């Protein structure tokens, strides 16, 4: 499995690098070769050659500096998606696949526009901050996702949300829905980081990535791992928020 972490030195807020640790370990523990590459501003890379593209979240000001480079890669990213490269987007990365986002200072930043959703800024600098639990549906996988959200951006016009909010805000204050998923791209505001406490999502992402080279590969083909720690961490939070755990 070949992964490209886009703009890793800019888009790494709130421990997003933990997601790469999880993918790497869950592949290696199963004997699946795992290769992590990075792509910075100005670097020549054919993104369609990877099985997975990962974008994390960045600080407002720093994130701005990569926009021209990102837009110059638009065709290449579209080609990657067409050719079944799976895309995992967290927070800022999620916003950048929509039409535009409005930065905290009010300026409107044109984005890739692959989808119709767009991100306005929270009124008077308000932010959605706190623990979040959602009930997510990804293809045949139905699972709860748990994480921590911290975003001023209010994402609206999402036609394929990832899941229903059980605790927390989601795409915007009182949105009721969180993230985006259409079979090719998974976008979410969940930091935490996302994958350590959501092992099924990690395995789902690995499966989607492996399907690029092996379209028949199923999640059930993955060798089971001992997820005792992961499940205990989830249960502790479900208990705290009085949410029924996964059965």
């Amino acid at each position, binding site marked *: 499995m070949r992964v490209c972490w886009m703009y890793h*030195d800019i888009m790494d807020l*709130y421990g997003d690098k933990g997601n790469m640790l999880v993918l790497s370990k869950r592949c290696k523990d199963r004997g699946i070769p795992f290769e992590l590459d990075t792509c910075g501003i100005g670097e020549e890379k054919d993104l369609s050659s990877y099985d997975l593209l990962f974008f994390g979240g960045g600080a*407002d000001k*720093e994130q701005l500096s990569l926009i021209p480079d990102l837009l110059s890669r638009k065709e290449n990213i579209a080609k990657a998606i067409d050719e079944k490269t799976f895309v995992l987007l967290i927070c800022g990365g999620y916003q950048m696949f929509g039409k535009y986002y409005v930065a905290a200072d009010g300026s409107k930043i044109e984005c890739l526009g692959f989808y119709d959703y767009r991100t306005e800024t929270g009124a008077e600098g308000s932010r959605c901050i706190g623990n979040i639990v959602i009930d997510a549906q990804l293809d045949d996988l139905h699972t709860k996702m748990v994480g921590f959200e*911290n975003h001023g951006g209010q994402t609206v016009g999402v036609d394929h949300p990832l899941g229903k909010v059980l605790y927390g805000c989601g795409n915007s204050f009182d949105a009721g829905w969180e993230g985006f998923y259409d079979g090719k791209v998974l976008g979410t505001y969940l930091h935490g980081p996302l994958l350590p406490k959501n092992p099924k999502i990690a395995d789902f992402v690995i499966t989607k990535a492996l399907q690029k080279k092996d379209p028949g590969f199923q999640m059930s083909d993955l060798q089971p791992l001992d997820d005792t720690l992961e499940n205990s961490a989830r249960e*502790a939070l479900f208990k705290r928020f009085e949410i029924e755990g996964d059965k």
Partner: protein
Amino acid sequence: MQKLAILVTRLSSWVLSKMGRGGSMPGRLGIKIAPDCLNHLKFGGPVILVTGTNGKTSTANMVSDLMEEAGYKVVTNRKGDNLRVGITSTLLSHCSLSGRVKADAAVLEVDELNMKYIVPALPVTAIVVNNFFRDQLDRAGEMERIIDTIESVLPDYQGDLILNGNDPNVVRLAMAAPNARKIYFGAAKNASTVEHSAEAAEGKFCPKCGSRLEYDFYQYSHIGQFHCSSCDFATPKLDVCPDEIDLDAHTFRYDGHVYPMASDGLYSLYNCAAVLAAARSAGVDPKLAEKVFARAERPAGRNERFEKAGRDCILNLVKNPTGANEVMKVIEKDPAKKTIVIVLNDNAQDGRDISWIYDTVFEKLMDDSTEEIICTGTRAWDMALRIYYGGFTGKIRPEESMEAAVHEALQAPHVYAVATYTALLPTRNTIVKEMGL
């Protein structure tokens, strides 16, 4: 209303102190009665503020001691009550009914987000800024916002601005303060200086033009000698720059004189440099700081050692990746067999967001000398997961009860305990009890 505010604050402070308590309640009452009560206070001498992410309390306490050493009667919020209400409590309970503060100098530790209230309200003569790191991000949003709020009160500020010249995010404040006299402090290269660093999360881009920053060397995290790759933004000429830094002997030299370091580690040296720069700003003989550094109290949970009958336990506070990484380095240096207990809480003062544990290099703990890592606190399982995904091959033991975790850890002869803010005192108490001290 001003007199009433002072009266009520003084009275309630007095009552609380008779009950053996302190706190912010008196200041809260004072502000309620006269919202602008700070604006009308009269000061007879320097008003020095200390702010930044790490080291505020130590630095402010040392500046306060220095001023006392120089003969000033000082009013200070020594207990670290650094929000607007706490500062109001401190000042109003030390002033006459006419609003004259009964001291020759005020030294105040100020929370970064409260600078916007304090700077415009008081006749501030000097502001010391130590550093800016990611800290309690969920409370403040992003570090950028913290810096913005401080910058917003600087355009009219006419006092001294005492800045860490090795932190680009601190140096940028100078651009927002055209009327201030700038004094820069830093530190010379030493044994722990490195040319490359993977820890410099906050120093990647020039705050002036957005281009990439380049470093000649790093001291720790993003603290070091930097310059912009395309504009003139760079570490300025340092007015106070300790050299001949000996981290083992805990000494350094400044202006031809050798000083003891107040505590371990390079970040403590920067606190000392800030104090020397404050001395320069206030026109106080820097040599007076020698005594201050020598007797500086090592706060609880900063490499605090407990020892009995051949067993020992070393306790450290961690509150953000930068501070935590420094703690990891100290533990990594110890080759002896050890057990480690990590207490991770996610209460408001710890930061509700615990993702910082992934920005901290816990991998430094993961060598053969670490036999077991016990994870506890309100986020015991998250901590255990972090260690697991970090690739630790020794024993990982999650334990929801802190007392049980500390008890288990202390079965080993050599233990390191690492605790977040709200976990520190309970953990300390448990260690003292378990070891029978």
